């Protein structure tokens, strides 16, 4: 029997989407913030695309990050025609809690001083929890290069924060 039609969607359950949002929403916003100053809008659009395509959010986590990155870069280019920004963002990147072992504002400032390629890997690894295998295509480098950038980023941050 010949199959003449095919399902192009995997279907998505509400609980899966909710769980995905709990886990990744803030991280995606932080990631988009690396390039543009309307990160929530970018993430909203990307997630809407995910829903419309009926893709499984868990199996397509890396895809969502790719879409967010592309949209954020595109927005930055359209809106300023300047180098994609991160250092000019006045919005706080992290919630400031008195119990934090590291000062949120200082961490943001030092992250902003890092090279974009290094900062991107740090954000994806530390806050999004992606593996180097998932980070490599996003950062457009090899897995080992992603690892190297991560280690270098940590060292630079520690030095900047006087923790060496």
């Amino acid at each position, binding site marked *: 029997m010949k199959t003449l039609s095919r399902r192009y969607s995997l279907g998505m359950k509400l609980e899966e989407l909710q769980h995905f949002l709990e886990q990744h929403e803030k991280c995606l916003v932080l990631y988009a913030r690396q390039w543009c100053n309307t990160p929530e809008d970018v993430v909203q659009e990307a997630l*809407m695309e995910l829903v419309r395509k009926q893709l499984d959010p868990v199996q397509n986590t890396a895809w969502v990050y790719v879409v967010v990155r592309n949209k954020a870069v595109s927005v930055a280019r359209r809106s300023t025609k300047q180098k994609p920004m991160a250092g000019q963002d006045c919005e706080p990147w992290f919630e400031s809690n008195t119990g934090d072992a590291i000062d949120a504002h200082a961490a943001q400032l030092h992250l902003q001083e890092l090279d974009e390629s290094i900062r991107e890997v740090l954000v994806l690894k530390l806050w999004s929890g992606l593996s180097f295998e998932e980070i490599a295509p996003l950062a457009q480098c090899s897995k080992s290069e992603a690892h190297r950038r991560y280690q270098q980023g940590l060292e630079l941050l520690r030095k900047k924060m006087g923790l060496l």
Partner: protein
Amino acid sequence: MNNDFENKLSALTPTSQSINRDALFFELGEQQKKPNRLVSAFLAGAIAASVPWLLLTQVKSQKIETSPSPSAPSLVLLEPAKSEPYSFLTYRKVFEATNDLPSLHYVEASAQVETLSDIQKEFSLYHQ
């Protein structure tokens, strides 16, 4: 030592004004109501041959060839485009924009169709 530093850093919580989750959940509900199958070009041809009393409206690469008779029903066949299939939503948007199809019928093919009678049966559900 790096591990400790990593843990401290990752403990920082990224800020975010919440995105509009209601809009996402609403869209999810809308998507799940829609048929999610495509009709192949072969099936389109088969329907055209077996149901000649219908005027066919074919959709190819978002170009719409409308029915020559405005009073006749139009059958809309969805075809996959290259690597990425179009969704019903995409087409609906196009149709809403044109707003010139008098009678629109979306046809959803069964997962398995092998004879013309299967096709007719399938279609009759949408055209009684």
